């Protein structure tokens, strides 16, 4: 791997953490907002809700939201 590519990948991770993950408040707020939104459609196990953000090579990010629901509301 070329040095520039290696630097870019490391930097993408660092910038993501600086902007988002390092701010514990931001993650807590996002989880709370998502729980409220999904709670309108599912009987959600709130503690099971997780959000992961992974950098993709083209400079974008893959955001994955995982949650377990006991049932689906009608």
């Amino acid at each position, binding site marked *: 791997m070329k040095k*520039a590519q290696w630097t870019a990948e490391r930097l*993408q991770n*660092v910038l993501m953490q*600086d902007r988002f993950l390092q701010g514990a408040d931001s993650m807590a707020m996002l989880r709370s907002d998502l729980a409220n939104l999904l709670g309108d459609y599912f009987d959600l196990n709130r503690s099971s809700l997780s959000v992961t953000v992974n950098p993709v090579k083209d400079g974008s990010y893959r955001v994955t939201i995982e949650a377990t629901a006991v049932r689906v509301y009608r």
Partner: protein
Amino acid sequence: MGRCIVITSGKGGVGKTTVTASLGLALATLGKRVVLVDADVTLNNLDLVLGLEAAVTYDLYDVTMGTCRLKQALLTYPDYPSLKLLPSVHPLGEVDKTAFREVVEELAQTQDFVLIDCPAGVDDGFVRAVSAASEALVVTTPTATALRDADKTLGYLDALRVSKTALVVNRVRGDLVASGEMLSVDDIIKLLHVRVAGCIPEDDVALSMCGATPVGTAHHQAVNLLARYVIEGKGKVYDPTYIYRGPLGSLRRWLKKA
């Protein structure tokens, strides 16, 4: 009313003051009335970069304290009468934010551009310098540390309601970018999601001459393109890799390494 642009960086030592001086010279060459304000009160260098250090009588601090009139503190660059400097030489002088803003507003009434050379970091001096500007140029080098600080600085500028921001990538080595050893401008745009107003190649002559580079050099061309970008809000950015492409370019890269 002139445009007030703060030249900032976050990280120190990326060439902020040299970029401010070079850009000021280039804008003056293009016929614009420009004043450079040294807002780096404690670590002032703009007077030295422009070779005007011996001419300083009054400075920014004196103006804000009412010791002298604004006109008395302004220095004119010898070769370009349309380029002026408001220096800072009181290292311990506390410059009030409101007074600073008023000085910059007064300057903007008679100038096309007021370029504010911001101190490094994001402390009080940064907030004071940014408070007087409506636009910002964030100077960085293509290194991970400088880019990380530039990204944080862009965030602070956003929080301080400076919406018109762009990046100036300084000290780019075309040979290293071409061989994949240094981040390119495109890589930086992808990472920081910001406009790049200028790309300035590393130039030993520019370093030794503190901004005023001879006509025709790569540095001179790059700064001129930056000045045009600043005036028009869009335009071409200098490509430092073009002489290092192709078979001849490979030879140049090899010679540079040797």
